[in-house]
């Protein structure tokens, strides 16, 4: 166990947010690529809306940078990808915008979650994965550009502690 009781600190990584990936993500769910609270990228306004990164792309880039994707996360906590792991909650907080073509330092950790499960899931286990996206530049910001915390519920016990 690294980083404190029951906390697995993942190796730090960097991601360059690709414009192409942003676009593919939008296409995968029949969406124009979106930005937090911004405007859809139509042909008319592509230039003005090209900058910010799709919300859910952050959910891919965080694990990719730190543990080579969600399969790698499951592996780190002793669960196989055929374990019945279901998403419970997701929270994203934004500081400065996450932009395409920029590189971010990504930190990540996995830890047990204190989320209260319902009666039906009382025999299950909850854990959360948290990733922070820090802009790389001369001035270290006070807070990350984005923080993504995802709580998941599993029928098997993660080997966190």
């Amino acid at each position, binding site marked *: 166990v690294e980083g404190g009781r029951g906390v697995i600190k993942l190796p730090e990584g960097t991601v360059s947010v690709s414009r192409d*990936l942003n676009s*593919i*993500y939008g*296409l*995968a*769910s*029949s*969406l*124009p690529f*979106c930005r*937090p*609270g*911004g*405007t*859809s990228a139509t042909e008319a306004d592509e230039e*003005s809306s090209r*900058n*910010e990164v*799709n*919300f*859910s792309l952050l*959910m*891919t880039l965080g*694990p*990719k940078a730190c543990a*080579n*994707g*969600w*399969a*790698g996360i*499951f592996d780190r906590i002793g669960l196989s*990808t*055929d*374990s*019945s*792991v*279901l*998403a*419970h*909650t*997701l*929270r*994203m*907080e*934004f500081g400065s*915008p996450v932009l395409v073509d920029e590189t971010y330092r990504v930190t990540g950790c996995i830890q047990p979650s204190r989320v209260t499960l319902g009666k039906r899931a009382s025999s299950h286990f909850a854990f959360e994965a948290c990733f922070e996206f820090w802009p790389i530049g001369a001035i270290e910001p006070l807070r990350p550009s984005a923080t993504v915390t*995802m709580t998941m519920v599993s029928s098997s016990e993660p080997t966190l502690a």
Partner: protein
Amino acid sequence: MVTSRDDEFEIVLGPIRRESLWTIAALQGDLTPIHWHDRAVSELGVGERPIAQGSMIVELISRAVDQIEPLKRNIASLEVRFRRPVFVDDLLKISCNLPEGHEEWLLTVENENGVTVAEAKVEPSAFPPVS
């Protein structure tokens, strides 16, 4: 298509495509069978068709946020609670109530049977959108 009445907005999205789940699974490195294998889902006892990734639901909520005029501002935070699985072929309705003066918005995602599958809380940023 977005429909609105007074402070209420509604948008219908979907159906969820199986191919989209494959694409997202490949991009995420998420090889969990419940996102692509019908039998894995039936063995879990929650349904008969593959379950959409959480990121897909976030994507749809992101789209709703993007299409509802009063929400088109920078977002300080987004919180999603996944209530029930969303399956391939599901058609989803996202509704939002925007009472004047409220600084936090709640979005509800329902499937075509009227079951709430997700709820989202959006907190707008105090700052204007970046151009």
